[in-house]
């Protein structure tokens, strides 16, 4: 089917949607996020309570001290029934002791008030951070083989390790894993990426000694559009035109595509693989050609290859994908 026919079909679908049931359209309005005063007022309420409590406690304590200290001084004096001709010095001592006691108590109370304020500050901080944590996305980033930093969102969306069988059973994406691999490769690692329970992509690595092949499968999005290569412009994707390090040799304006180009399924062939694979002299490693690229299937699925292999091996690998 030609692109024009598909486009006409898409426009017909778009027009047909105009008659979508009103109840469905109304339901799609959803609920817009409203600033919840009550959510944030928990913090404010906590602050107010602590301040009031702290103030009340401090004030009460001071009142008790002020009335209690004079009473304490007075009571002993009354109870002592000292003779009128009591030793003024002794009396002074008692008063001095009372004053000293007052001062000591004030210092203690001040220290305790400071502690309470510190504790309440810590407490408030805990409340705030706990509330913030509910809304804050944990920036759990991982760079996929296609070079794109992938933000997985909250920690519960962290990749899930699965075996090859489970990954092949994944709806839609599993069908895009190759069924034939070069001789000697064995499964070594596999992950399923998800968001709120829904699979957003899968990744599988097979290895043979120092050689490896990693295949990532996910959905094409509009954000990938800038990486779709024009095969009539080999300077944007052919690694043989540049020297390593590529970051120095590849012109800036081509870097975004060159770093990991996406080839349309209709453009993808042995020549494209040849253009993306290169032997690298690397001490301690094999000289198997290595490279990476991505293929965009008509279904909207992206299959990214990263690893080593001959052009024929990689071509056969892609040909073994059963989904198409």
């Amino acid at each position, binding site marked *: *089917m030609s*692109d024009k*026919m*598909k*486009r*006409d*079909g*898409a*426009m*017909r*679908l*778009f*027009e*047909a*949607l*105009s*008659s*979508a*049931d*009103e109840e*469905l*359209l*109304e*339901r*799609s309005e*959803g609920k*817009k*996020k409203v600033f919840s005063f009550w959510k944030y007022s928990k913090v404010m309420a906590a602050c107010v309570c602590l301040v009031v409590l702290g103030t009340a406690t401090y004030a009460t304590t001071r009142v008790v001290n002020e009335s209690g200290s004079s009473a304490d001084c007075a009571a002993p004096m009354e109870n002592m029934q000292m003779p009128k001709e009591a030793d003024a010095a002794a009396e002074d001592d008692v008063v001095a002791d009372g004053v000293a006691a007052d001062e000591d108590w004030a210092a203690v109370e001040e220290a305790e008030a400071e502690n309470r304020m510190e504790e309440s500050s810590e407490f408030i901080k805990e409340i705030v951070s706990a509330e913030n944590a509910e809304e804050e996305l944990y920036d759990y980033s991982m760079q996929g083989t296609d070079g794109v930093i992938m*933000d*997985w*969102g909250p920690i519960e*969306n962290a990749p899930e390790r699965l075996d090859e069988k489970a990954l092949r059973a994944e709806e*839609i994406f599993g069908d895009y894993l190759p069924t034939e691999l070069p001789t000697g490769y064995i499964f070594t690692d596999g992950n399923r990426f998800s*968001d*709120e329970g*829904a*699979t*957003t992509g899968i990744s599988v690595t097979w290895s043979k000694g120092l050689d490896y092949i990693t295949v990532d499968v996910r*959905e094409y*999005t*509009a954000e990938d559009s800038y990486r779709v290569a024009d095969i009539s412009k080999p300077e944007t994707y052919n690694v043989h035109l540049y020297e390593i390090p590529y970051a120095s040799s590849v012109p800036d304006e081509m870097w975004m595509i060159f770093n990991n180009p996406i080839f349309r399924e209709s453009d993808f062939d042995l020549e494209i693989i040849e253009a993306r694979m290169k032997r690298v002299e690397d001490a301690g490693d094999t000289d198997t050609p290595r490279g990476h690229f991505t293929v965009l299937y*008509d*279904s*909207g699925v992206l299959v990214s290859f990263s690893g080593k292999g001959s052009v024929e091996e990689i071509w056969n690998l892609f040909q073994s994908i059963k989904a198409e």
Partner: protein
Amino acid sequence: MKDTEILDLYWARNEQAITETQYSYGKYCYSIAFHILHDREDSDECVNDTWLRAWYAIPPKRPNKLSLFLGTITRNLSFDKWKHKNALKRGNGEMELALDELMECVPAAHSTEDAVEAAELERLINNFLHTLPERECNVFLRRYWYVEEYHEIAERFQMNLNTVKTSLFRTRTKLKAFLEQEGIAL
């Protein structure tokens, strides 16, 4: 002013109906138009045409939900204008992306089949939408009826961006399968 009161003005052929409609639904209709056209002047034009169309449609119509009635008119007018502007060249913007995505849903053509009639396609699309879980249907409509951007949809339903994308991907796949199962040729 309530919808029933506005409709009464239409039925009474009181031109105040247009003023009240504009006041109540001007922004709503403009938003629909702008999502499709991404052009202020064109969007204003479509919105103004919407009031005119509504004036001639009511009566005899008395829509149950005035906002959706008006929104549909705006959507259709905007899409017609978009088609006219982009007849010769591929345009940019969200409308273009939405259509690119819907292209994935077009079933493979069979030369012996005639293209389905518009009314039948509308009926089938509605049947399909009713088979979808609520959230999936909502996301699909926000994207392909309202042409909202991914982040707008994510914000509206408090979803993660990737979840929106995955949901739409799955629904498009389902739609294609549904149309193929129904033997539909577009």
